[in-house]
Structures are given as C-alpha cells and as structure tokens.
C-alpha cells in the first residue's frame, strides 16, 4: 500500500491554477451574455451530420436551441471554474481544459448558426484536411527537437516538397511525386544537419536561411521554368480512400475514414512515432541524446549518428507533408503556397509539448480555426474573420507564456554537441 502524498505545489503553480479558474469563469460569463442572452429568440441551430452523398444520408440533423445550448454550456464552464478554484482537477486539468475549449466553440457555433443550417460534418472534414500539413510539419519538428536540433526550416521543407511533388507528379505520376517530395525534405534536412551538427552553425539561423533559400529558389524556378512549361505543373489530386464499413459510419466515418492518403499517413505516423519514441530502444536513445548528449555519449550512444538520422527522418516527414499542398489540395505549385504553415507547425509542436499526440491535437485545433474562418463568412456573423484567424497564434503565445502550464523542451535543444 502506498500512502497518498499530498502534492506540494509551487507558488507559480498555484497562481496558474487560480488564473485558469478565473479564465473558466470569464468564459462562462461571456458565453452566458454574448451567446446566450444574445441569441434568445433567434431559434435553433441545425447542424448537418452527414452529406447527401453518404450511405446514411437520411441521418437526422442535430438541432439545438442556440440560447438554451449557451445557457447549459455557461453553467458547465462556471462549474469547471468553481472546481478549479476550490479543489482543482489535478491530473485531469488538461483534459478538462480541452473539454472546456470544445464546449466554448460549440456554444459559439450554436450562436453563429442560430436559425440557420450549418454543415458540421463539412467543417470538421475540412478541419482534418487543413491540419494535415501542420501536423506533419509538427511531427518533423518533434523528430528533430527530440534529438536537440531546432528545426525552423519546416516551412522550407514543406515548400520544397510541394515544388518537387508538382514537377515530378506532372511527369511521372503521383506515386513518384510523393517519393520525390519525401527525398527533397530529407536533402534539406541533411543540409540543416550538416550545418548544425558538423559546422555547429546557429540552428535557428540555418533554419531561417533554408526557408529564405527555398522560397527564393522555388519562386525563381516557378517563374523561369513552370510559367512557360505548364505541362510541368499540373498533377492529378489523390482521391479519397474510403475504408470499408468504417467509412459508412455516419458523421465520424466521413471525417476519419473517407480521406486521402495524407490523412491516413498522418494518423499512422502519430501512432508510430508515439510508440517509437516512448517504447523502443531507438526512442529512448533519441530522447537521451536530446536531454543529455554527454551522458548518452558516455553510454556509447552515437550522438551524431542519432542526430543525423532523426533530423533526416523529420525532413522526410515534412517533405511528404509538402506534397499535400499539391496532390492533396490544389493540384499544382504556386509560389509561396505553404504561406507560413511550417511556422504554424512549429507552434503546434510547442503547443503539443514535443509529443506526437499533442502535436496532432494542436494541429487539429489550428486546422479547425482555419476552416472555421472560411465557414464564418457563409454564416455572416458579426465577428470579422481576420480576428478568428488570429486565434491560433494568440493561443500559441498564451501557451508558451506558460498560462496553461509550462511546456518544457528537450534539455539540450539547440545546443551543438562537441565530443571530447
């Protein structure tokens, strides 16, 4: 029998817990006032859960009275705040935070769609798609930073992968496009690795430089070669694959099991990396290299070898993610088509605390905000879409500022290792 030891909390933790509790209360008041009182008499929001093309297309819509929904959610948030301020949620703290966040969004959607009909399935489907490059970029970041190499170059790897995927895809088909994009990411990662590990150049600067270089080179070649040779820049899109039976499940099947290969690869990679990093010898050694390279070296682990390997694997993931922009989304290359998604991926990695599952979760949140921004224009809410577009970035700032718990990077992150 173990004796329950009362957890000793530092003043900083107590402050943070109090701040979180107050945040819940503020959100509750906001939901009550704006979404609740604001939509009394506006009628019910009708959420479509299936598409007309689905097998179970007669599945009923989810119809909720907007005001009532807001009142219930406000009450729930207030309860969260009360519990947080009195006894706290202990280990469940982050789960409750996620639930609270989801409830808040749901209340918001109810308010925005009051008296109208809104395709929830369409928006969530779009969210998953939009989160793909962010998630793959974040996973690439996790791979690199777990061995203490900071990878700002995710953006460049995505963009480079996209360019190569467009050119190779136009000439040799989509399979080779994916292979080539993956290899492109690896090559860029190799450059990062050599400069960062061998030449010990400042890693953040190498990353920035790779991004500028890839942006310049792809834009340059796009204008010089692709503009006059359109046959080098038109690929087919990868069709969605419907998994038998699972794909027919109303709502969830549409979102999770009727997607193109990128989405499935994303889920498989998250599962694989989580297992690999935390349950295999390779993962243990990688993390050791990231936390305390000297100790790892003393134990005979090849620090440089692990760094090269994992950085290049990360590059492969990001390069593959770059192909999504072409084969999974647009069908051709446009200049600067990644538009900062690599940086968002970096944020998702930090948001997700250097963990594959966390990174995926953060990427889904960012993808959700992205697609919500697009759908809000249709619903004609009084909130300008620009402000919604800011939300993920502000959320990231709040996270790194430690408001919702301190995220800790691998201890040796960014430091070159000098073997003695």
């Amino acid at each position, binding site marked *: 029998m173990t004796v329950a030891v009362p957890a000793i909390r530092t003043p900083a933790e107590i402050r943070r817990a109090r701040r979180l509790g107050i945040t819940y209360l503020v959100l509750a008041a906001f939901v009550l006032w704006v979404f609740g009182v604001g939509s009394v008499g506006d009628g019910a929001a009708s959420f479509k859960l299936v598409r007309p093309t689905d097998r179970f297309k007669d599945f009923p819509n989810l119809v909720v009275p907007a005001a009532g929904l807001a009142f219930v959610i406000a009450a729930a948030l207030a309860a969260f705040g009360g519990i947080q301020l009195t006894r706290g949620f202990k280990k469940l703290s982050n789960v409750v935070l996620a639930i609270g966040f989801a409830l808040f969004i749901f209340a918001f959607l109810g308010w925005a769609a009051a008296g109208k009909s809104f395709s929830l399935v369409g928006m969530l489907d779009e969210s998953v798609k939009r989160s793909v490059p962010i998630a793959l970029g974040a996973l690439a970041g996790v791979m690199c930073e777990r061995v203490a190499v900071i990878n700002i170059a995710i953006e460049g790897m995505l963009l480079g992968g996209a360019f190569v995927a467009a050119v190779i895809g136009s000439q040799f088909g989509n399979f080779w496009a994916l292979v080539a994009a993956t290899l492109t990411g690896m090559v860029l990662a190799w450059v990062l690795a050599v*400069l960062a590990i061998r030449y010990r150049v400042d890693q953040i600067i190498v990353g920035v430089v790779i991004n500028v270089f890839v942006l310049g080179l792809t834009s*340059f070649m796009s204008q*010089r070669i692709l503009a006059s040779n359109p046959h080098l820049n038109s690929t087919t899109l990868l069709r969605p694959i419907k998994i038998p039976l699972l794909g027919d499940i109303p709502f969830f099947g549409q979102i999770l099991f009727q997607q193109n290969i990128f989405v499935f690869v994303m889920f498989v990679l998250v599962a694989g990396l989580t297992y690999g990093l935390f349950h295999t010898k390779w993962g243990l050694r990688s993390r050791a290299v990231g936390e305390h390279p000297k100790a790892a070296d003393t134990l005979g682990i090849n620090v440089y070898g692990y760094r090269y390997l994992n950085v290049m694997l990360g590059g492969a993931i990001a390069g593959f993610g770059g192909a999504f922009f072409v084969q999974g989304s647009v069908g051709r290359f446009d200049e600067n088509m990644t538009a900062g998604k690599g940086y968002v991926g970096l944020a998702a990695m930090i948001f997700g605390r250097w963990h594959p599952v966390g990174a995926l979760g953060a990427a889904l949140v960012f993808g959700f905000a992205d697609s919500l921004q697009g759908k809000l224009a249709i619903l004609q809410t009084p909130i300008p879409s620009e402000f919604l577009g800011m939300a993920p970035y502000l959320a990231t700032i709040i996270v790194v500022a430690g408001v919702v718990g301190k995220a800790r990077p691998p201890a040796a992150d960014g430091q070159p290792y000098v073997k003695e």
Partner: protein
Amino acid sequence: MSTNDESPSVTPPESVEQEGSFFRDLTGVGANWRSAVLVPVLAVFSALIVAAIIIALTDIDALRLWGHDPGGAFSLTWHNISGAYSSLVVGSVGGLRAISETLVQATPLILAGLSVAVGFRAGLFNIGAQGQLLVGGMFALWVGFTVHAPVYVHLPLALLAGALGGAIWGGIPGLLRARTGAHEVITTIMLNFVALRLVDYYLKSSWFQAVGRDDPVSKSIDVSAQLPRVFGFLDRDDVRVHLGIVVALLAAWFVYWLLFKTTIGYEFRAVGLNPRGALYAGMSVTWLIVGVMAVAGALAGLAGADRVLGVLHRGSPGFAGTLGFDAITLALLGRSHPWGVVASGLLFGALRAGGQLMQVRTDISLDLILVIQALVVVFIAAPALVRAIYRVKTAREAERLTTGWST
C-alpha cells in the same frame, strides 16, 4: 570599430570565451580584419557564383543545346548570366536614377536590419521585425491622414508614431520573455501573423479604407507627412530618393552611440553575452530585455513608416514586402554592427534595385535576389565553409547568436 568599444571591467572572462571570437571581432578586441571584411566579401562573391550556376542550370533552352552544340550552349548561358549581372550593376549604380533607387530600397532595409542587429547584440532573435514594421507603418499611416499640421510638426509626429507602434509590438514579446520566459522566436513569429491579419482588417475598416474603394487600400497621407524628396529641385519623377535615408543613417548613428557609448547599451550587450552575469552585476534583466525589444521594435516601426511616408504615401496589404525577413540576413551580413548594417543595407538595396532592372531586361525574376541573400548568410554564418573553400584564416568557431527555447 575601435578597441575601447568594449569596456574592460565587468564582463566575466569565461563568457567571452564561450561566445567565441564573434563579438571580439566586432568590437575590435583582438581585431581580425579577415573576419570583419574578407569573409563578407568572399561570402557575397561565392553567393554570386552559386547564383550564376543556378541561372545556368535553369536555362532550358541552353540545356537543350548542350547535347549537340556545346559552344553555342556555353555562349548562350554566358550571355544570360552576364546579361543578368550587368543589369544588376546598371540598375543599382548606373546613373542618378539607379543610385536613387538603390537608396530608396536600402532605407527600410537598414532600419529593419538595425532592429534585428540590436536584438542580436542583446542575445535576442527578433524574427518579429515584419510584424513591427506592419504595426509601425499603420500607426504612421493613421497619423499621416488624420492629423493636419505643418510639415515640421506632422512629419516628425508620423515618424514617431511609426516608432511607437513598432516599439509596442516589439515590447510585448520582450515583456513575455522577461516575465514568463516565453521564447521571443516563437512569440514574434506568432505576432507577425497577428499583425498581418490586423492590417488586413484595418485596411478594410472605415478608419483606414479610402472612401469609395472596395479593396483594402487606405486613404492617402497628407503631403505634410510625406518624406520630402532629396532631389525635389531637379523636378524628376524617377529620382525618388527621399529624406528617409537620412533618417536611417541617423538611426544607425543613434544605435552605435546607444550600444557602444552609453551605460544602457553596455548593459544591453552584457545581457546578450551573459544574462546571469548581468543579473549578478545588479542589472535589471527584465527591463533590459523589454527595453531592447522596444528599441528593436521602434527601429522596425520606423522602417514601416519609411515605406508608407516615403514611397507609397498610402497603405496596401503588402506594404512591408518581406523586409522583416530580409532584415535578418542583413543583420547577419552586417555582423550586427550599425555600420556593418548600413553597408550591407546598401548592398541589399543595390541588389534589389538592380534586380528590378534584371527582371525587366532578362527573364530572370527578382526571386533570385532571395537566393543570393540566403547563400550570403550561409557563407557568413559558417566561416568553416569559407575557410574550406578559400583556404583563408577565419574565426575558428561558428557564430552562436541565439539561444535554444529553454532559458
């Protein structure tokens, strides 16, 4: 760069050793002219060579020729490369108009480069110059069309507003870094995105949008807020160089004075070299970090104001271009020294002005300039590469300007 830039007293000796010879080279302690001058020159030279190779490799017509007519292919490639580089030269220094364009392009680059350089000096990596530029530009714009005053009041007021806007946008990540440890690289990248969306929003709002326009274009600023043209008396529309270049040079002098001649500047650099040492020496590290970021932001904000008050005279979504990111490469090339920044700002301005002519005359796009800039920095940041290629002595260690996420 004289030897007495670095005060000999407080800086703990081990920190100097840790940072390698970078700061010593810059500040003149153990001055090594090779690192300060030779490496940048070789870096630019190497970058131009590599860019020429890229031009050759992307020249489809010439590549087709290599098989059966190598001589013709070679002369075609040579013609292309020499055409591109000669228009780079003609477009940047070939005549009054070209020089004027070079200065117009260099002005915001110098200001934004100073912003990043000040950050580097204090061990902070300001990727947020882009956002600070945007916010500063919007502040200056707003003063430009709402306030109506004589030029000697209006123009300084608009410039100050630009600096203030940038200082606020730079101060926020400074405060977050100092109080919560949130890394400025992340927060400034995020604030760039936020600033971008704020600009999109405000340019379409009734505060800013020009009357009768549907697209996001702002009202035009008053003539009294415009930076006057230096050669206005010539009455030539194509000689656009304006007083902004004087503002930029004054700013460079100010940064030099601040960093190397004042106590505050000494403390800025001390924080950069060894934050813990600075703390033990009794400096208020918190407020120093906020101060550094605010000064950096103010400089970037001035760059934004320069774009709006000097060139465009109104706001549109892309008014900052990619200046904030060019500024990073520029600060590195200038080795974070104000005069180095001025020199490399002039170089980048020349590349940009020449690149525009190159784009018109040949089919080589301006994006090649980005490639050149990136290559320059690679060679600067990895002295070992230059050493390996040219067999010259350089600094032994690569530069470390930033710190990892954890602090």
